Protein backbone atom coordinates (compact mmCIF):
# COMPACT_ATOMS: atom_id res chain seq x y z
CA UNK A 1 0.00 0.00 0.00
CA UNK A 2 2.69 2.39 1.06
CA UNK A 3 4.77 1.53 -1.99
CA UNK A 4 1.83 1.93 -4.31
CA UNK A 5 1.05 5.45 -3.12
CA UNK A 6 4.70 6.41 -3.11
CA UNK A 7 5.11 5.10 -6.64
CA UNK A 8 2.08 7.03 -7.83
CA UNK A 9 3.27 10.28 -6.37
CA UNK A 10 6.79 9.72 -7.68
CA UNK A 11 5.29 9.39 -11.15
CA UNK A 12 4.14 13.01 -11.12
CA UNK A 13 6.40 14.58 -13.76
CA UNK A 14 8.76 17.33 -12.67
CA UNK A 15 8.74 20.50 -14.83
CA UNK A 16 12.10 21.68 -16.11
CA UNK A 17 11.56 25.09 -14.53
CA UNK A 18 11.62 23.78 -10.99
CA UNK A 19 15.24 24.70 -10.27
CA UNK A 20 14.69 28.27 -11.41
CA UNK A 21 11.74 28.56 -9.04
CA UNK A 22 13.79 27.30 -6.11
CA UNK A 23 16.54 29.77 -6.94
CA UNK A 24 14.02 32.61 -7.35
CA UNK A 25 12.43 31.92 -3.98
CA UNK A 26 15.76 31.90 -2.18
CA UNK A 27 16.97 35.00 -4.01
CA UNK A 28 13.78 36.88 -3.15
CA UNK A 29 14.19 35.96 0.49
CA UNK A 30 17.86 36.94 0.42
CA UNK A 31 17.05 40.34 -1.09
CA UNK A 32 14.38 40.97 1.51
CA UNK A 33 16.63 39.93 4.37
CA UNK A 34 19.32 42.22 2.98
CA UNK A 35 16.82 45.06 2.72
CA UNK A 36 15.52 44.46 6.24
CA UNK A 37 19.06 44.37 7.58
CA UNK A 38 20.02 47.62 5.89
CA UNK A 39 16.75 49.13 7.07
CA UNK A 40 17.58 48.22 10.64
CA UNK A 41 21.01 49.75 10.21
CA UNK A 42 19.44 52.85 8.72
CA UNK A 43 17.15 53.07 11.74
CA UNK A 44 20.18 53.21 13.99
CA UNK A 45 21.77 55.79 11.74
CA UNK A 46 18.53 57.74 11.64
CA UNK A 47 18.55 58.13 15.38
CA UNK A 48 22.03 59.55 15.19
CA UNK A 49 20.95 61.92 12.45
CA UNK A 50 17.99 63.08 14.48
CA UNK A 51 20.18 63.66 17.49
CA UNK A 52 22.61 65.62 15.33
CA UNK A 53 19.82 67.71 13.87
CA UNK A 54 18.40 68.46 17.28
CA UNK A 55 21.66 69.46 18.76
CA UNK A 56 21.78 72.04 16.02
CA UNK A 57 18.22 73.08 16.61
CA UNK A 58 18.42 75.80 19.14
CA UNK A 59 16.18 78.48 20.37
CA UNK A 60 17.83 81.79 20.85
CA UNK A 61 16.36 83.96 23.50
CA UNK A 62 17.35 87.54 24.01
CA UNK A 63 19.55 88.29 26.95
CA UNK A 64 17.67 89.36 29.99
CA UNK A 65 15.46 86.32 30.19
CA UNK A 66 15.75 84.10 33.17
CA UNK A 67 15.11 80.51 34.05
CA UNK A 68 11.72 81.23 35.55
CA UNK A 69 10.28 82.48 32.33
CA UNK A 70 12.14 80.02 30.19
CA UNK A 71 9.56 77.26 30.48
CA UNK A 72 6.89 79.66 29.36
CA UNK A 73 9.01 80.73 26.46
CA UNK A 74 9.34 77.16 25.39
CA UNK A 75 5.60 76.97 25.63
CA UNK A 76 5.44 79.82 23.15
CA UNK A 77 7.90 78.03 21.01
CA UNK A 78 5.51 75.11 20.65
CA UNK A 79 2.43 77.29 20.26
CA UNK A 80 2.80 77.39 16.53
CA UNK A 81 2.77 73.65 16.20
CA UNK A 82 -0.73 72.89 15.03
CA UNK A 83 -2.81 69.86 15.88
CA UNK A 84 -0.55 68.68 18.60
CA UNK A 85 -1.99 67.87 21.94
CA UNK A 86 -0.37 67.85 25.30
CA UNK A 87 0.92 70.51 27.59
CA UNK A 88 4.05 72.30 28.57
CA UNK A 89 5.11 71.19 32.01
CA UNK A 90 8.30 72.76 33.21
CA UNK A 91 10.70 72.36 30.35
CA UNK A 92 8.87 69.44 28.79
CA UNK A 93 6.21 69.41 26.17
CA UNK A 94 4.43 66.30 27.37
CA UNK A 95 2.78 63.85 25.05
CA UNK A 96 3.12 66.12 22.10
CA UNK A 97 1.34 63.81 19.69
CA UNK A 98 1.50 60.54 21.60
CA UNK A 99 4.17 59.80 19.08
CA UNK A 100 6.74 62.45 19.81
CA UNK A 101 8.22 63.60 23.10
CA UNK A 102 9.95 66.96 23.13
CA UNK A 103 11.92 68.42 25.97
CA UNK A 104 14.34 71.21 26.51
CA UNK A 105 17.92 70.11 26.84
CA UNK A 106 20.92 71.92 28.26
CA UNK A 107 20.79 75.67 28.61
CA UNK A 108 23.94 77.54 27.63
CA UNK A 109 24.49 81.18 28.28
CA UNK A 110 27.05 83.47 26.80
CA UNK A 111 27.37 87.22 26.85
CA UNK A 112 24.78 87.77 24.15
CA UNK A 113 22.47 84.78 24.10
CA UNK A 114 20.85 82.00 26.03
CA UNK A 115 20.77 78.85 23.95
CA UNK A 116 18.33 76.07 24.73
CA UNK A 117 18.92 72.71 23.09
CA UNK A 118 15.88 70.63 22.20
CA UNK A 119 15.58 66.88 22.46
CA UNK A 120 12.96 65.06 20.45
CA UNK A 121 12.22 61.41 20.99
CA UNK A 122 10.16 59.43 18.49
CA UNK A 123 7.99 57.18 20.60
CA UNK A 124 6.73 55.15 17.68
CA UNK A 125 9.71 54.91 15.40
CA UNK A 126 8.48 51.66 13.93
CA UNK A 127 5.42 53.17 12.25
CA UNK A 128 5.07 55.57 9.34
CA UNK A 129 6.06 58.33 8.88
CA UNK A 130 8.62 57.97 11.64
CA UNK A 131 10.05 54.72 10.37
CA UNK A 132 11.10 56.46 7.17
CA UNK A 133 12.16 59.70 8.79
CA UNK A 134 15.77 60.51 8.17
CA UNK A 135 16.12 63.97 9.67
CA UNK A 136 13.88 66.26 11.66
CA UNK A 137 14.43 69.97 11.37
CA UNK A 138 12.71 72.86 13.06
CA UNK A 139 11.24 75.70 11.12
CA UNK A 140 11.54 79.31 12.24
CA UNK A 141 9.91 80.12 15.51
CA UNK A 142 9.74 83.23 17.60
CA UNK A 143 9.10 83.53 21.27
CA UNK A 144 6.49 86.21 21.72
CA UNK A 145 6.13 86.49 25.45
CA UNK A 146 7.15 84.59 28.49
CA UNK A 147 3.67 83.04 28.77
CA UNK A 148 3.64 81.91 25.15
Amino acid sequence: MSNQIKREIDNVPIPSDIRNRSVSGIQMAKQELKYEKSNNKARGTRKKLIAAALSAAIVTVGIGSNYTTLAGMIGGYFQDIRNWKGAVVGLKYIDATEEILIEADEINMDSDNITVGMKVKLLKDDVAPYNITQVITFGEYSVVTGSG
Partner: protein
Amino acid sequence: MVVTETETIKLVKKAPKGDDGAYLELFVKYEEMIYRTAYLYVKNEEDALDVVQETAYRSFKSIKNLKKPKYFKTWLTRIAITSALDVLRKRKNMVFIDEYKEDMASVEDETAEITTSVSLLELLKSLKDDEKSVVILKYYYDYTFNMISEILDMPLGSVKTIIYRALKKLRIEGKENLYE
Protein backbone atom coordinates in the same frame (compact mmCIF):
# COMPACT_ATOMS: atom_id res chain seq x y z
CA MET B 1 18.05 12.75 -3.16
CA VAL B 2 19.37 11.10 -0.04
CA VAL B 3 20.81 13.65 2.34
CA THR B 4 22.71 12.55 5.39
CA GLU B 5 21.80 14.12 8.70
CA THR B 6 25.34 15.41 9.13
CA GLU B 7 25.26 17.04 5.71
CA THR B 8 21.87 18.60 6.41
CA ILE B 9 22.98 20.01 9.75
CA LYS B 10 26.13 21.44 8.18
CA LEU B 11 24.20 23.18 5.39
CA VAL B 12 21.38 24.37 7.65
CA LYS B 13 23.88 26.06 9.93
CA LYS B 14 25.35 28.02 7.03
CA ALA B 15 22.02 29.39 5.82
CA PRO B 16 21.25 31.90 8.61
CA LYS B 17 24.59 33.53 7.88
CA GLY B 18 23.25 34.44 4.47
CA ASP B 19 24.88 31.59 2.59
CA ASP B 20 22.23 31.19 -0.07
CA GLY B 21 24.46 28.83 -2.05
CA ALA B 22 24.60 26.36 0.82
CA TYR B 23 20.88 26.67 1.33
CA LEU B 24 20.13 26.12 -2.34
CA GLU B 25 22.33 23.03 -2.28
CA LEU B 26 20.19 21.70 0.54
CA PHE B 27 16.82 22.86 -0.75
CA VAL B 28 17.17 21.31 -4.21
CA LYS B 29 17.44 17.91 -2.60
CA TYR B 30 13.84 18.33 -1.50
CA GLU B 31 12.40 20.44 -4.30
CA GLU B 32 10.95 17.52 -6.26
CA MET B 33 9.33 16.10 -3.16
CA ILE B 34 7.84 19.50 -2.42
CA TYR B 35 6.63 19.91 -5.99
CA ARG B 36 4.90 16.54 -6.04
CA THR B 37 3.30 17.17 -2.66
CA ALA B 38 2.11 20.58 -3.79
CA TYR B 39 0.79 19.16 -7.05
CA LEU B 40 -1.59 16.89 -5.18
CA TYR B 41 -3.07 19.90 -3.44
CA VAL B 42 -3.16 22.52 -6.17
CA LYS B 43 -3.58 20.09 -9.08
CA ASN B 44 -1.73 22.06 -11.70
CA GLU B 45 1.88 22.62 -12.64
CA GLU B 46 2.02 26.38 -12.38
CA ASP B 47 0.56 26.60 -8.89
CA ALA B 48 2.72 23.70 -7.75
CA LEU B 49 5.79 25.58 -8.99
CA ASP B 50 4.56 28.64 -7.11
CA VAL B 51 4.42 26.52 -3.98
CA VAL B 52 8.01 25.39 -4.53
CA GLN B 53 9.11 29.00 -4.92
CA GLU B 54 7.09 30.12 -1.91
CA THR B 55 8.49 27.30 0.20
CA ALA B 56 12.04 28.26 -0.82
CA TYR B 57 11.27 31.88 0.02
CA ARG B 58 9.59 31.27 3.37
CA SER B 59 12.09 28.68 4.51
CA PHE B 60 15.18 30.75 3.71
CA LYS B 61 13.66 33.78 5.39
CA SER B 62 12.93 31.88 8.57
CA ILE B 63 15.76 29.36 8.65
CA LYS B 64 17.27 31.24 11.58
CA ASN B 65 14.23 30.17 13.62
CA LEU B 66 14.90 26.48 13.08
CA LYS B 67 16.35 25.45 16.41
CA LYS B 68 17.14 21.85 15.59
CA PRO B 69 18.67 21.37 12.14
CA LYS B 70 18.01 17.65 12.25
CA TYR B 71 14.31 18.43 11.92
CA PHE B 72 14.90 20.41 8.74
CA LYS B 73 12.90 18.06 6.52
CA THR B 74 9.94 18.02 8.90
CA TRP B 75 10.07 21.78 9.18
CA LEU B 76 10.31 22.22 5.42
CA THR B 77 7.44 19.82 4.83
CA ARG B 78 5.24 21.83 7.14
CA ILE B 79 6.09 25.03 5.25
CA ALA B 80 5.38 23.34 1.92
CA ILE B 81 1.97 22.09 3.02
CA THR B 82 1.06 25.45 4.52
CA SER B 83 2.10 27.17 1.30
CA ALA B 84 0.01 24.77 -0.77
CA LEU B 85 -3.02 25.30 1.46
CA ASP B 86 -2.51 29.06 1.20
CA VAL B 87 -2.65 28.81 -2.58
CA LEU B 88 -5.92 26.92 -2.29
CA ARG B 89 -7.33 29.50 0.10
CA LYS B 90 -6.38 32.29 -2.25
CA ARG B 91 -7.78 30.50 -5.24
CA LYS B 92 -11.21 29.57 -3.93
CA ASN B 93 -12.93 29.93 -7.24
CA MET B 94 -15.25 27.96 -9.43
CA VAL B 95 -12.47 26.42 -11.43
CA PHE B 96 -11.35 24.49 -8.41
CA ILE B 97 -14.88 23.34 -7.63
CA ASP B 98 -15.42 22.28 -11.22
CA GLU B 99 -12.18 20.38 -11.24
CA TYR B 100 -13.18 18.68 -8.05
CA LYS B 101 -16.52 17.66 -9.48
CA GLU B 102 -14.83 16.34 -12.60
CA ASP B 103 -12.44 14.37 -10.49
CA MET B 104 -15.24 12.88 -8.47
CA ALA B 105 -17.25 12.08 -11.58
CA SER B 106 -14.32 10.24 -13.06
CA VAL B 107 -13.89 8.39 -9.81
CA GLU B 108 -17.50 7.30 -9.80
CA ASP B 109 -17.07 5.90 -13.26
CA GLU B 110 -14.25 3.71 -12.11
CA THR B 111 -14.80 0.21 -10.98
CA ALA B 112 -14.44 -0.47 -7.29
CA GLU B 113 -10.90 -1.72 -7.65
CA ILE B 114 -8.08 0.65 -8.39
CA THR B 115 -6.44 -0.74 -11.42
CA THR B 116 -4.54 2.11 -13.03
CA SER B 117 -2.00 4.54 -11.70
CA VAL B 118 -3.97 7.46 -13.07
CA SER B 119 -7.02 6.58 -11.03
CA LEU B 120 -5.06 6.36 -7.79
CA LEU B 121 -3.41 9.70 -8.38
CA GLU B 122 -6.75 11.25 -9.22
CA LEU B 123 -8.23 9.72 -6.09
CA LEU B 124 -5.41 11.14 -4.03
CA LYS B 125 -6.01 14.57 -5.53
CA SER B 126 -9.71 14.31 -4.79
CA LEU B 127 -9.24 13.72 -1.07
CA LYS B 128 -10.03 16.48 1.39
CA ASP B 129 -7.00 18.55 2.37
CA ASP B 130 -6.61 17.00 5.80
CA GLU B 131 -6.97 13.49 4.38
CA LYS B 132 -4.48 14.27 1.67
CA SER B 133 -2.01 15.63 4.19
CA VAL B 134 -2.00 12.55 6.39
CA VAL B 135 -1.82 10.15 3.46
CA ILE B 136 1.06 12.03 1.84
CA LEU B 137 2.97 12.37 5.10
CA LYS B 138 2.42 8.75 5.98
CA TYR B 139 2.96 6.99 2.70
CA TYR B 140 5.11 9.39 0.71
CA TYR B 141 7.27 10.90 3.44
CA ASP B 142 7.15 7.81 5.66
CA TYR B 143 6.51 9.81 8.81
CA THR B 144 5.15 8.10 11.89
CA PHE B 145 1.71 9.00 13.21
CA ASN B 146 3.37 10.92 16.02
CA MET B 147 5.40 12.99 13.57
CA ILE B 148 2.32 13.63 11.43
CA SER B 149 0.49 14.74 14.52
CA GLU B 150 3.25 17.26 15.22
CA ILE B 151 3.61 18.50 11.67
CA LEU B 152 -0.10 19.07 11.21
CA ASP B 153 -0.60 20.21 14.79
CA MET B 154 -3.38 17.69 15.11
CA PRO B 155 -4.20 15.20 17.90
CA LEU B 156 -2.84 11.71 17.31
CA GLY B 157 -6.32 10.21 17.46
CA SER B 158 -7.52 12.57 14.72
CA VAL B 159 -4.58 11.65 12.51
CA LYS B 160 -5.50 7.97 12.77
CA THR B 161 -9.19 8.62 12.20
CA ILE B 162 -8.49 10.76 9.16
CA ILE B 163 -6.09 8.30 7.61
CA TYR B 164 -8.58 5.49 8.13
CA ARG B 165 -11.25 7.54 6.41
CA ALA B 166 -8.89 8.52 3.59
CA LEU B 167 -7.84 4.98 2.90
CA LYS B 168 -11.43 3.90 2.89
CA LYS B 169 -12.04 6.50 0.22
CA LEU B 170 -9.10 5.28 -1.72
CA ARG B 171 -10.60 1.85 -1.54
CA ILE B 172 -7.36 0.32 -0.65
CA GLU B 173 -7.41 -2.83 1.36
CA GLY B 174 -4.94 -3.60 4.06
CA LYS B 175 -6.31 -1.90 7.12
CA GLU B 176 -4.36 -4.34 9.22
CA ASN B 177 -1.21 -2.45 8.24
CA LEU B 178 -2.50 0.93 9.29
CA TYR B 179 -1.41 1.05 12.87
CA GLU B 180 2.15 0.00 12.79
